[in-house]
C-alpha cells in the first residue's frame, strides 16, 4: 500500500517534471521581434501561436529602428536612432549588452560569419564595426557623409552608400577585421537614400533622391561595376511630394524582374533584372514605401507614405495589375511575411496593433496588441543575405 502510494507519487512527479522540462526548451525559428518605436521596447512574438510572448524594454529611441539576428537565431542586434546598439536575447527576453556607439544611427548589418556587426551612422557620418560577442569596437570608418542602405556581402564584407557624397563603399574585413580593405566607388548619383543587396549577394541597388534613376553595383566584378538605370523615369511628370522615403530592403526580385517603388510618383516600376530596362509601370494609390514580394514571388504587396498610409495594395506579378486594396488601418508602417509565405503580419501604428492576415485569402487571422508598432522582424532573416 505504502509502496504503491510511493510509486504513484514518483510517477506523478515524473509526469509533472517531464513535460515541464520539455516546455522549458524551445526553438527560436518561429519567433520574431516587433519594434515599439515610441516606447523604446521590443515585443517578442511567436508566429505559431500568433501571439506576443514577452516584451524587452529599455532600448532608447527606436524611431527608424531596425535589427539583425545572430546565426543561431537567439540574439538580435538592435540599431536605435539615438546611436544605441543593443544585443537582446529572445529566450531570456532581456537586454544582454548595450552601447551608445554614435550620435544618430540609421541601421546595421551582420557579417556572413556572424562575428561582426556593422552600424551605419548619420552622425558622425560613417560606419562602425563591433564584435558580435562583446560589442567592443573593432573598426571605425568615417565617411564624411550620412550613410544609408548598409548590407552584408559574402566574405566578411559590408557595403554602404553615402547620402551627401553619392558614393558606395565596400569594406572587406576578411584579412584583418580591424583594418578593412576599402573599395570606394564615386559618382554613384545624387543623394542615395537607401539601397539593397539582392538575395544572391551579387547586386547592390542604390535608390537616388537627388536625381532620377538608380544605380546597380555588380559585386562580382573586381573592381565592382556601377551601372545607372531608369535615368529618365518620371522626368516628363511633375514630382509629387515624398512624405516618407521609400525603403529598399525587401525590394522585390520576382519572376526575373525588379518591382521598385518610384520616388515622387505614385507608381511601381518594373525592371528586367538582366538588362535593367524598364518593362512597365503600375499606378498605385500613393507614394510607395515598401514593395515586398510574397515569398512565392507571385504577388507584390505595397504600403504607402502619408496621407495614404492606411492602405496596402496587392499587385499580381503576372498581370502587373492591382488585384486588391486593403485598408488595415491608420499608419501601416511595415509588413513581414512568414518565411514560406503563408501569413503576413502588418504593423498598424496608430491603432496600436499588429494584424495577421492569410497571405492568399487576405482574411484577418488574428491581432496582437502592440504600442505604436513599426518594424516586424522574423528570425528567418538570420539566414538571408542582405537582411
Amino acid at each position, binding site marked *: 500500500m505504502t509502496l504503491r502510494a510511493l510509486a504513484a507519487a514518483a510517477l506523478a512527479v515524473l509526469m509533472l517534471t517531464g513535460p515541464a522540462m520539455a516546455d522549458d526548451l524551445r526553438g527560436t525559428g518561429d519567433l520574431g521581434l516587433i519594434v515599439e518605436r*515610441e516606447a523604446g521596447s521590443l515585443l517578442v512574438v511567436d508566429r505559431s501561436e500568433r501571439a506576443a510572448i514577452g516584451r524587452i524594454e529599455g532600448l532608447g529611441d527606436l*524611431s527608424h529602428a531596425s535589427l539583425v539576428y545572430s546565426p543561431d537565431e537567439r540574439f538580435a542586434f538592435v540599431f536605435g*536612432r539615438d546611436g544605441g546598439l543593443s544585443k537582446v536575447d529572445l529566450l531570456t527576453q532581456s537586454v544582454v549588452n548595450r552601447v551608445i556607439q554614435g550620435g544618430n544611427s*540609421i541601421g546595421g548589418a551582420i557579417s556572413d560569419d556572424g562575428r561582426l556587426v556593422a552600424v551605419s551612422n548619420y552622425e558622425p557620418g560613417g560606419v562602425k564595426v563591433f564584435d558580435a560577442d562583446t560589442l567592443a569596437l573593432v573598426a571605425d570608418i568615417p565617411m564624411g557623409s550620412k550613410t544609408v542602405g548598409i548590407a552584408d556581402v559574402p566574405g566578411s564584407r559590408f557595403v554602404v552608400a553615402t547620402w551627401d557624397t553619392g558614393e558606395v563603399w565596400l569594406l572587406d574585413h576578411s584579412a584583418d577585421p580591424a583594418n578593412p580593405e576599402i573599395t570606394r566607388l564615386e559618382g554613384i548619383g545624387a543623394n542615395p*537614400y537607401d539601397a539593397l543587396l539582392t538575395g544572391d549577394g551579387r547586386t547592390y541597388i542604390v535608390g537616388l533622391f537627388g536625381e532620377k534613376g538608380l544605380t546597380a553595383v555588380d559585386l562580382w566584378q573586381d573592381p565592382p561595376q556601377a551601372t545607372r538605370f531608369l535615368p529618365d523615369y518620371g522626368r516628363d511628370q511633375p514630382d509629387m*511630394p515624398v512624405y*516618407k522615403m521609400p525603403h529598399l530592403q525587401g525590394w522585390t526580385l520576382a519572376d526575373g524582374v525588379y518591382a521598385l517603388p518610384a520616388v515622387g510618383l505614385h507608381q511601381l516600376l518594373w525592371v528586367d533584372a538582366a538588362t535593367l530596362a524598364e518593362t512597365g509601370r503600375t499606378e498605385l494609390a500613393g507614394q510607395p514605401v515598401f514593395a515586398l514580394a510574397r515569398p512565392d514571388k507571385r504577388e507584390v504587396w505595397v504600403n504607402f507614405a*502619408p496621407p495614404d498610409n492606411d492602405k496596402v495594395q496587392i499587385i499580381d506579378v503576372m498581370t502587373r495589375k492591382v488585384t486588391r486594396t486593403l485598408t488595415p488601418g491608420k499608419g501601416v508602417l511595415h509588413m513581414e511575411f512568414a518565411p514560406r509565405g503563408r501569413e503576413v503580419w502588418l504593423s498598424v*501604428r*496608430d491603432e496600436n496593433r499588429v494584424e495577421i492576415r492569410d497571405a492568399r485569402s487576405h482574411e484577418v487571422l488574428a491581432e496582437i496588441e502592440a504600442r505604436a508598432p513599426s518594424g516586424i522582424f522574423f528570425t528567418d532573416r538570420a539566414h538571408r543575405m542582405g537582411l
Partner: protein
Amino acid sequence: MTETRTLLAVCLVALVPGWPAAAMSGDATAIPEARADELRHMVRQDCGSCHGLRMTGGLGAAITPEDLADRDPQDLAGLILDGIPGTAMPPWRPLLTEDEALWIADYLLEGDEK
C-alpha cells in the same frame, strides 16, 4: 474661413507687440483641440520619419527647440508649407493650412510639453 482665421491671428499678434511666439501656440481659437492632437501626432510620427521621433535629426536636420532657437515662427511655417527645394523636405501645403503650419512651428519652438 482659413483666411479669416489667419487674418485674425495676424491681427492679434499685431495688436500685442512683443507678444512672444510661444503665446500664440495656445491659440485655441485658431486650431481646435482635436485637430491640435492630430498635428502633434503628425509631427512626432510623420515629421519624425526624417527628423526623428524626438526631433533630434536623421535624414532631416535636428529640430528641437534648442536647434531652432532664434528662428522666426513665420519663416518656419513657410518652410513647412513649401518645403526646401533641392532637399528631401517636401511641401506640406497639400496637407496643412497656413494656420496649422504656424501652429506646428510654434509647437516645435516650444518643444513637446504634453
